């Protein structure tokens, strides 16, 4: 399927009506002007948190560094 770049800058996502109502109440009096802008903000925050988490993963390199230190302290053969 071909997607044109000048079209479809936005898409529709369905969320439960009850949740939408809760969000509407929650954003009253805040800087969010619509349900969409709030949901977009929340999703961006979640994704950026996940990116950060994966960049802080304990990698193989980290493990080797830790093991080398434990050897020097006599905790590991």
């Amino acid at each position: 399927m071909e997607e044109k770049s000048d079209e479809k800058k936005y898409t529709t996502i369905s969320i439960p009506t009850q949740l939408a109502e809760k969000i509407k109440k929650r954003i009253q009096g805040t800087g969010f002007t619509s349900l969409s802008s709030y949901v977009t903000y929340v999703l961006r925050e979640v994704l950026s948190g996940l990116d950060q988490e994966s960049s802080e993963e304990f990698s193989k390199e980290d493990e080797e560094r830790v093991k080398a230190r434990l050897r020097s302290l006599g905790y590991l053969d």
Partner: protein
Amino acid sequence: MIKLREDTNYIVSGLERSGTSMMMQMLEAGGVPIAYSEARKPDTHNPKGYFELEGGKIINRLIQGTFPFESYKGTFIKITAYGLSYLPQGSFKIIYMERNLEEVLDSMETMAQITDQNREETKQSFKKLNEKIKQSLKMRQHTEVLFVNYNDIHKDPRTNIEKICTFIGPHQYDTAKMFAVVDSTLYRKRR
């Protein structure tokens, strides 16, 4: 001597040089059963002893999956943070020590007699290990964890001792002796 649950393994953990030996010593002073060997003798880095099994090399047995947890039920043993990556299924109560990471690294360098040229990288690796282990402990089934901060113990031993005793369970602890173990002269790498 206090009698702990015989269906549970009790562990003191945390990064090396985060006060795990002091915690073992406090527990012993309080009348809590602990197990350790004397393969690694006290030295200038731990003048009161290491309180470890197998001379501190228990991690090797954990990696091989040959450490006999069954034999140590109802008794506190020390397994430092990295070793907890290899913890089998089962019922555990864990006291996890935390300490200012810069102090931990300072103390490690003194003990290993090195000057770490890649200190920032080492710091990040230990920080990630610490977070990974803490996170995994929170997710484990049948595992209770108490996080105790080494720096806080020195500031307020009494409150921390109360927390520790409450966590282990309702027994007759010798809290005066536990209190006496907190020796500020051994808190040498301060930041």
